[in-house]
């Protein structure tokens, strides 16, 4: 008697949030189906792939293809420009690792100058990631927010400790977007969204960073949190969990053993670069399958592959 598939389309939808400005502006969210299920209903907006560029040039020993991609880039702006040329890149993530007071400790002024340089180098939407130091991130996000008034960037991330300052300085004062970061727990994620909106940040200005992990490193928590958040958003119409999800995959996968052990140390594992790429690809694919609306990647091969997979599923 055959089989007729039932399209599973929900009444509720993931909230739409716009990043960036002008022709290259990017809309995240809008889906009324389970993640990636374009066969149930065509996408309003496809999930997006962004490229991570750090103010500290990437370590490229053992990574010839990555080194070749950025070869000849003298400045941060050059690297941003080059990153934007990757096939499938829809936005750029400026990762200011160098601001870390425990590391290079670049001043807020230096970071602002770099952010302006990056903004001049590309018209793709910008996502600003900090150095994970709460005090420093607050200061640098506020300053970068004021320095890029017309670019509508997304700031990663506001946490329970600093959401007030970042929400006020970035989202409320300048109308930019803020990533609400929680550590793989649906209730904490929701609570942070509630607190941010109570502060006065419009819900449409919030994107969620639900936490991330490389494949094999506790990814079950990431997957289950995303599964639950999407279910609550779509089945329960929970408006405080309908924000689109962004996952900074590269910030996790490039520091695990599989990606950093040299081929000399682990000859049986083979090419270090292949390992790093596959780790990034597998993790990114798993994030999108679980419900990320955007992923941040580092390697041009990963960016190309994940963008192609999204296109093939559309």
């Amino acid at each position: 008697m055959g089989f007729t598939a039932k399209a599973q389309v929900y009444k509720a939808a993931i909230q739409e949030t716009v990043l960036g400005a002008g022709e290259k502006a990017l809309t995240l969210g809008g889906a009324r189906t389970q993640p990636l299920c374009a066969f149930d209903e065509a996408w309003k907006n496809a999930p997006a792939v962004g490229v991570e560029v750090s103010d500290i040039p990437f370590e490229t020993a053992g990574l010839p293809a990555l080194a070749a991609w950025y070869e000849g880039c003298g400045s941060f702006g050059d690297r941003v420009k080059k990153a934007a040329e990757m096939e499938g890149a829809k936005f750029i993530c400026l990762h200011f690792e160098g601001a870390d007071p425990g590391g290079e400790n670049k001043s807020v002024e230096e970071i602002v100058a770099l952010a302006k340089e990056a903004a001049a180098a590309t018209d793709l939407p910008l996502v600003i990631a900090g150095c994970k130091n709460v005090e420093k991130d607050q200061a640098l996000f506020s300053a970068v927010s004021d320095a890029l008034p017309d670019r509508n960037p997304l700031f990663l991330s506001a946490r329970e400790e600093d959401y007030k300052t970042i929400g006020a300085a970035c989202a409320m004062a300048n109308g930019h977007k803020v990533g609400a970061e929680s550590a793989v727990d649906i209730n904490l994620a929701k609570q942070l969204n509630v607190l941010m909106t109570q502060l006065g940040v419009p819900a449409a200005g919030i994107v969620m960073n639900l936490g991330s992990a490389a494949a094999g490193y506790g990814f079950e928590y990431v997957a289950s949190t995303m599964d639950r958040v999407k279910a609550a958003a779509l089945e329960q119409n929970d408006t405080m969990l309908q924000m689109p999800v962004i996952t900074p995959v590269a910030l996790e996968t490039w520091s695990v053993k599989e990606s950093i052990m040299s081929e000399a140390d682990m000859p049986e594992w083979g090419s270090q670069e292949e390992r790093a790429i596959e780790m990034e690809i597998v993790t990114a694919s798993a994030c999108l399958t679980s419900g990320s609306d955007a992923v941040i990647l580092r390697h041009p091969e990963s960016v190309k592959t994940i963008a192609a997979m999204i296109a093939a599923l559309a």
Partner: protein
Amino acid sequence: MGLFDVVFHGSDEMYALAETAVKETLEKIGEDAPVAFGSTAYYLACIKAYTGLEVTNMAQLRDALTPIRAMMTRNRRTADIFHSGIATVMAAEVIEACKYAVNPLPYGENENPNDNKYHGHMTDAEVRELGVPLVTRDIPGFVVLIDEAPTDEQAVALIKGYQSRGIFVFLLGGIIDQAMRKGVKMGFPVRVVPVGPDIIGVSHIISLVVRAAFIFGNIQPNDYVNMNRYTMDRIFAFVNAFSPVSDMTVACGAGAIAEGFPVITNEVKDMDWRVPKSLVINTDVDTWIDCSLEARGIKLKVTNIDVPVAVSSAFEGEIIRKGDMQLEADGSRKDCLELVRTKDVREIEDHKITLVGKDIDEFGVGEKICMATIVEVGGAKMQPDFEPVMERKIHSFVNCLEGIMHTGQRDLIRIRVSKAAFEAGFRMKHFGELLYAKIKNEYEAVVDKCQVTIYTEPEKVHELRIEANKIYDARDDRVSKLSDESVDVFYTCILCQSFSPSHVCIVTPERLGLCGAVSWMDAKATNQLDPNGPCQIVPKERVVDEEIGIWEDVNEAVQTYSHGALEQVSLYSIMQDPMTSCGCFECICGIEPFSNGVVIVNREHTGVTPVGMTFSELASMTGGGVQTPGFMGHGRHFIPSKKFMKAEGGLQRIVWMPKALKESVAEKLNANAKELYGIENFTDMIADETIVEGDPEALVAFLTEKGHPALGLEPMM
């Protein structure tokens, strides 16, 4: 003159000055000359905010006078005072605009206004710089100090007092000279800003206020109601005005009150119109800080805990051995107690720490002492029901001190102070400092003031203990009298969702959380203290069946907080949609079909039950947030409740419990069984592991011999 006349007169005066200023400036620079304060996107912000006009030249400035005048209504109602007050501030802005139109640096040569005597206009960047911490409440508020304080010393004391509390300070008029004479450092970076030489400069401060509302609140121009609502709700400002107060200042003060900013003054003349918390007459200038903060409802965070040892949760499990001990307060041997009491806020001196009796250094090493800690708290939202919740937290607060060990609660506490802590300088008052800081911070929502008294004098402690026991008894009595019928709401608890994603506890007075740690009272307090937290209110208005314990509201809550995994629960049934179990339940009850009853087993009991399963076997099929009819996790205190499986006939269904568990609930269980069924010593009829373990037939034989009521009841399935 009454206050109405003073306001009207002051506002007329300001308007006249504005008219004159416009006339003279027009003569000087003509009507096409530009008008701007510089570095702002909001034109003349006060005028834009309250009229919608965007003034860019002298002609427009002149035209703006008309709507300003029109706002100065004179009907002798409160609204007239407020409108005139706002209009007075706009008139002041007109005067300031004229100054800037003639000379872009009217307050000095320096480009950086912080280097000039008066700061004048503030840029949008400065509004943001101040606005962000005002929104986040890192700066709890700001004060505008107007004119000369009675003495230079008082001026400095107020400025420094506010500064030390993190309050941003704006100065207008004579107090600026007082501060300069005393060498007070001023400028935006040190959060003390001398704005201008007279009250006219107030327009710069209100300009900052309305721009903050534009920027952070997305308030639209010419929206009087929403602008004032925003400033009232979100901008924690207030005014201190010194006598003699000019009529123009009073008129501007009316504008401040319209925006929700209270005015505190020592002027008594013509102040016949009083509004509590809005216009406060207080002639004792030295008490203005507390008085002002209370009027504006500003609560300060305690950031430093003044103790000589570290405070961290890492020390919570620290054990102090006898040999390392400086002294000990042991409630099982000496009189000791801890008590939190609610008191009228006016009778509490915030942060007062008192010691009655000897201090640590006055006792001998290793001595066992008497000790009573009385914490008194007050606040508009404080309720006596929160007392036990806070009191129980004393344990974890004190335990976080390095070198201090704390166990127990009420009059059964034990505290040890280590030699190392003593040598680091730890004394009795530091208990007070710690409790003050922790309670103020943790219970910010309800505690406005807190004081701590520590008693070590044996007779006094003995008296206190007798008194405290009466209070403890009264509390227990109140808790035991609470019933599901006597309250209007239940609460959710979803603390366990990190382990058990779809589990939701519904906490009622008679059915505490299944972990046994969250009573209805705890859930209520948790909800009030953290309205977005794990305990949410569940109304119980729409009854479906009160016998079985079904409410539509409860079902909706379960659906919402299980994120759709559960549809409905019956609070008083284990057969029909029983409540789910997370994994941390104290006890499990399960149906025993041969006796028509249920067995209950607690986590500590490892033996097999007559159902043929142990606690952990039962737990493995009951946990995880799924409904398993016939089996249910619950708290120990639910067992003797009249609501315990009421739908299936209640307590008389209990046929087996481990002996230790049976004994711990015997008193109440027997009392309720007597009341409900007229059975004496019901627990004697309930089997335990000394009588039968994994054998249902032996169980039935025992029950038959005892005449257990369950045997005669209808089968449960």
